[in-house]
Every structure is written in structure tokens, then in C-alpha cells.
């Protein structure tokens, strides 16, 4: 992972329209952003598309980044893209159904997840409500603090803490069975 000085240099070069700098951003963040998308939609084809959309939006929006925590900003953009996707699909339940089917077939797709534990985790994540799942995934992949998550969701920090704790607890208990 790039240190903050190196990251600032890359971001500044991106602002100048440097394709090489954008390529570096892709190298640094594509895995985490993909992980976030995949954990939310459970489909590799959709995750591929969302990741692509994310970086294309970065090309448009990088000039609006006014400093601060770049990763928080990046995952806010990623979260917006995910919600745009949900709106396009109209009904979240349909996405979840699609995820269920996809996750059921994960063992047949070793390319995305070669561990049974990961497949189980995906199944358990699926059982969480969408908001809690997104909070957990954002926190995990973006490394946002609880305070930043609360700001992103416009919720009190106590609510976010309680939700994440409850969600992670049920996830952990299910995995320990």
C-alpha cells in the first residue's frame, strides 16, 4: 500500500490527467473495491462492471477530491455506485435472490473464492440486512472509522456501533458453529 506522500503524488498526477497515475490507483485499490462490490452483490460479472464504473467515475470526479482521507472518499464514491446499481435494479430483493443463486454456485467457481470458509462467510453475510452488511463491508474494505461511517450514513455513531457489533456478532456465531 502506498504511503500518504506517495498517494498524494499519485492523486495530484491523476488530477493532471496522467493515465499512468490512474493505472497506479487501479493497482492499489482495485482489490479492495472489488471485494466490497463482490461482498455486496455476490456476482463476479456485476462486480466487474461496478469496479469498472468506479474507476471511470474517478476519472471524472478526481478534481472534486479536496484532500483529507482519500480512501474514505473513494469508498463513498464506491458506495454511491453500488446504490445507483440497486436503484437501477429497482428491488434489492431481486439482487439478493441473484446473490443467493450465485453464492450457491461459488464452489463451482474457484476463480473468485477458493476457500469453503469464504463461501460460508458470503452466505452468512447474505443473511444480514443490506444496511448492516454495507456498514460491515465498508468498514472492512475502506478502513473507515466508525465516526466516518456515521458521517457517511448520516446516523449517530452509537447506532452505527450497535449495528456493526450486532451484525458481526451474528456473523461470528454463525461461522463458529
Amino acid at each position, binding site marked *: 500500500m502506498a504511503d500518504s506522500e506517495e498517494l498524494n503524488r499519485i492523486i495530484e498526477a491523476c488530477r493532471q*490527467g496522467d*493515465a499512468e497515475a*490512474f*493505472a497506479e490507483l*487501479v*493497482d492499489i485499490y*482495485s*482489490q*479492495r473495491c*472489488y*471485494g466490497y462490490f*463482490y*461482498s455486496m452483490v455476490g456476482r463476479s460479472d456485476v*462486480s*466487474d462492471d461496478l*469496479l*469498472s464504473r468506479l*474507476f*471511470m467515475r474517478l*476519472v471524472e470526479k478526481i478534481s472534486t477530491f479536496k484532500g483529507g482521507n482519500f480512501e474514505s472518499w473513494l469508498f463513498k464514491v464506491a458506495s454511491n455506485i453500488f446504490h445507483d446499481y440497486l436503484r437501477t435494479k429497482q428491488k434489492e430483493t431481486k439482487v439478493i435472490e441473484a446473490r443467493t443463486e450465485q453464492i450457491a454456485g461459488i464452489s463451482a467457481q474457484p*476463480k*473468485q*473464492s*477458493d*476457500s469453503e*470458509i*469464504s463461501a460460508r*462467510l*458470503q452466505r452468512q453475510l447474505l443473511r444480514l440486512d443490506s444496511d448492516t452488511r454495507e456498514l*460491515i463491508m465498508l*468498514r*472492512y*474494505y475502506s*478502513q473507515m*472509522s*466508525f*465516526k466516518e461511517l456515521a458521517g457517511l450514513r448520516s446516523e449517530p*455513531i*452509537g447506532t452505527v*456501533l*450497535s449495528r*456493526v*457489533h450486532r451484525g*458481526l*456478532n451474528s*456473523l*461470528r456465531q454463525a*461461522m463458529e458453529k
Partner: protein
Amino acid sequence: MAEKKEDIKQLFEQFVDGGDAERSAKDIRKADEILAQLDANKPSDELTDRIKTKIDNALKNKRAAPVRWPRYAVAAAAAVVIAAVLIAASVFNAPESRTEPELISAAEWENAALKDDLTELGTLAQELEEIRNELLAIQSGEQINMQSERATELEEEMLEIEGDFWKG
């Protein structure tokens, strides 16, 4: 993956007592360890290469595209122009209270011309009166020795002056 810098226990302590805060923080740390199993989900190299190519193309298109003013900028510029025109119109069409000290008003100008005309008229009338008196004197025999040609000459002169007067 998750490198949390915040003190979770301290956060929980704002809402629950010390023992519960400790347990909750421990729950979260354990769950974070379990979540680390999700790291296996990665984008393919083909996908990242494709994204880089798309970015490259988008940047080239962006450079090639002519600079376009955003709509809001165009709207703002139009609003400024319209406001400037309205202000100018209201200023130039406002009822004027200003004076023009350098200029002579029309009435004054006409008065001055009239005065000049009256002076001229006065002079002409005076000349006419003198000639008339002279003529009357001749006719009344005050100047007996004056030749008749002179009388005729004076009469003609008087008629000429009268004609000039009416011609203006």
C-alpha cells in the same frame, strides 16, 4: 486487511459500561479476523487491464474534446448580461433632473433673437420716420428751394426701405 486505528473499546465506553465495552470490542476484533477470509475475492488481471485501457481512452477523449462551458456558467453569464442591459436601460431612461448650464434654453435663445429683431425694426422705423418727415417738409414748402427731383428721390428711397422692412 482492516487496519483500524481507532480505539473501539473507548468508543463503546461512551454507551455501555467498561466490562461490556471490553467484550464488544473483543467481538469486533474476532469478527474482523473472520472477515479476513474474504480476501480471496479479487478482480482478474484481464479486468484491471481493461479498466486501465478504458481510463487511457477516456483521458485521450477528454483532452481531444473542445472546452465546453458548463451550463450553469453559461446561464450565469447570460444573467449578468441581461442585468447589465436592464440597469443601463433604467439609467438612461430615468426622468432627468440634470441641468445643462452650458446650453442656452430654447426660450432664452428665442428671446435674444427677438431682441435683435426688435432693435433692427426700431432702427428701420426711425429711418422711415426721418424720411417721412423730410418728405412732409418738402411737400409743405418748408424747403422751397429743394428741387422736385430730390422729392421724388426721397419718395423712392422711402418705398425701398418699406419694401425691405416687409421682406424681413
